[in-house]
């Protein structure tokens, strides 16, 4: 239930595309040109005009009240200056609390203004506007996600994150619960071996994890219409290995914690770091080099990577073989640590 809900809500919410930028215009000129320009900005689809006033103060107030993201100030005699003096200047003030949005928003706005500028120029300069000058045309094509939809990017990764959360939390809490209630003593007095006990705890959750993955893939396929390009079996293979390592992490935490509160906090703390640094929200490539080195120790980043590669790009086994080896390594390491640290006698 909880994973389903998350899988539905997060991708809907996680849309980083910058559009709907609220624009306030302070127009001191009120000429035909300013009208045309503002019209052009509005029709670009990126901007929403929320305030059109004659004073800069009013426009800035709308930024302070968080109503506007960008203020465009058009000076008096804007049109006159372009025509007579050959150049005019505009002032743009951006609310930069959110740096990325500010940067892109300002770039879009400048782009539109440049376009408008070219439009005027061709209107005024009748003859071959400028001597034939060197021109490089750039064509851009985006592969694997031609619609440039954020959902394609987020849904697989959110699924990977959910699997991680579920696996770690449930295993971590399960054993500690037995510790807290005291039933673990009863198990300890049985002749069962340490690794039998650990395996016995692990397998049900492993099956549960694969079931959640199946549900998630169905939602992805039918709810979001994302058809995995690669082979789903590869995904299952990797996920089953990954689940082993992440369940091992849960077990490890549970062998260290004494109370459920502790187990929960410790897993929350570790997972928070893993997920934030796993490349779900921000690209790992943008992190500073020392952090990028740290992400090699982060199982979550491998899984998110593989899910995206298989679902979106159709990567095959040979493309992800390194990921597979690393994840097997994690599984062995974490589980043996957990078995080693689990003591039957307190």
């Amino acid at each position, binding site marked *: 239930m909880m994973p389903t809900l998350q899988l539905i809500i997060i991708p809907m919410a996680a849309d980083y595309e910058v559009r709907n930028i609220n624009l306030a215009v302070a127009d001191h000129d009120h000429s035909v040109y300013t009208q045309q320009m503002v019209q052009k900005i509005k029709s670009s689809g990126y901007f929403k005009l929320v305030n059109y006033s004659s004073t800069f103060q009013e426009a800035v107030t709308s930024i302070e009240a968080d109503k506007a993201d960008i203020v465009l100030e058009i000076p008096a005699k804007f049109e006159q200056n372009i025509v007579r003096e050959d150049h005019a200047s505009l002032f743009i003030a951006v609310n930069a609390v959110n740096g990325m949005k500010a940067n892109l928003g300002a770039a879009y706005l400048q782009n539109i203004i440049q376009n408008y500028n070219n439009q005027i120029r061709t209107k005024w300069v009748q003859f071959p506007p400028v001597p*034939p000058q060197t021109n490089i045309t750039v064509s851009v094509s985006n*592969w*694997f996600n031609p619609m440039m939809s954020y959902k394609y990017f987020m849904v697989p990764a959110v699924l990977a994150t959910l699997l991680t959360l579920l696996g770690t939390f449930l295993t971590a809490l399960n054993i500690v619960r037995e510790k807290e209630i005291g039933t673990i003593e009863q198990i300890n007095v049985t002749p069962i071996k340490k690794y039998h006990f650990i395996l016995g705890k692990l397998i049900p959750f492993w099956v549960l994890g694969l079931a959640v993955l199946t549900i998630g893939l169905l939602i992805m396929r039918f709810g979001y219409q994302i058809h995995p390009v690669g082979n789903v079996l590869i995904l299952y293979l990797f996920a089953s290995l990954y689940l082993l390592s992440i369940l091992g992490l849960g077990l490890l935490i549970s062998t260290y914690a004494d109370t459920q509160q502790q187990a929960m906090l410790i897993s929350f703390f570790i997972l928070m770091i893993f997920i934030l640094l796993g490349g779900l929200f921000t690209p790992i490539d943008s992190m500073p080099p020392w952090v990028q080195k740290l992400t090699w120790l982060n199982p979550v980043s491998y899984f998110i990577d593989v899910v995206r590669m298989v679902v979106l790009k*159709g990567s095959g086994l040979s493309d992800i073989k390194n990921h597979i080896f690393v994840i097997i390594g994690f599984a062995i390491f974490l589980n043996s640590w957990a078995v080693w640290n689990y003591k039957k006698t307190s």
Partner: protein
Amino acid sequence: MKQFFAFIKKEFFHIWRDKRTLFILLGMPITQIIIFGFALTNEVKNSKMAILDFSKDASSKQLIQKMSISKYFDATSVLYNYQEVEPTFKKGKVKMVLVIPQQFANDLQHGNQAHIQLICDGSDPNVANTLSTYATAIIKDFQSQLVKEQKLPYRIETDIRMMYNPELKGAYSFVPGVMALILMLTCAMMTSIAIVKEKEMGTMEIILVSPLKPFGVVIAKAIPYMLLSMVNVITILLLSVYVLDVPIRGNLILLLSEGLLFTITSLALGLLISSITDSQQVAMLISLMGLFLPTTVFSGYMFPIENMPIPLQVMSNIVPAKWFYFIVKTIMIKGLGFQYVWKETCILIGMTLVLFGLSIKNFKTRLS
């Protein structure tokens, strides 16, 4: 009153004894601030680029040189034909391929017209868009170096000022968000679990026969966590000022009292959760589902609210963290006064009262 303080003292012993929990509670804000401040950035740089150069002449070399010295691209591999492009992307490291057609220099010098193709890995649309924008800008720059551009007539110049955050640091929007998250977590989650734990262990009955009123018992349990949260607020503020260079532009007292208000709101939420659950696991799941997830998703520091579908935007209004995030952003980053946040403050106070009312109502019916 004396009994009340005795209870608070007892609760402090509880927390103090559990060193691991205490360590994590106090360490959490520090790690979060450091991760958010140093590691998480949406800025795209050092992206791996592959080069497919059919031309191999002076101009194409120059262009490649120019691209690779920019901080945005690292030319990591050289391809020789189109068939290699897809496998390269599938390996997952390369984000963009720069394709230079044959006779690039020739076309430039004699035909005055040349083509460049950029192939981006669109699986992350934002990175793809940003990369193609940067690359196009570099190519245009390269072009204008070739032609010493004459001053064009009828120019419109733009002058841009980035308000509040001229260096466009991500930390400016993350710090208030982290604050909301940590407060929610320590206050609501820990309080609810601490209370439910007593229920689960059966010790609640013992406490309830003490002369203190039941609600007093619960409040006494909440107060230590409230103090812990305030310690966290101060840690976050100190770290952001001295480590991340995020200034506190507004009134510190106002900021702290809003922090206290939000702490009380989270506390009320925690009480409500504890009054409707009986097991720690359930309390934890509800806290995660009902607090942590909405706080991250709807407060607006991770995901832009204005891009969400309308039903979600409406839903975001019932999340207290959203209002707190707005308040902190306004006071701390923009440096504005109380008159800009009084509405949001009233909403938070209203929410707190409603939550307290609900939990008192539920509490009585369960424990009498």
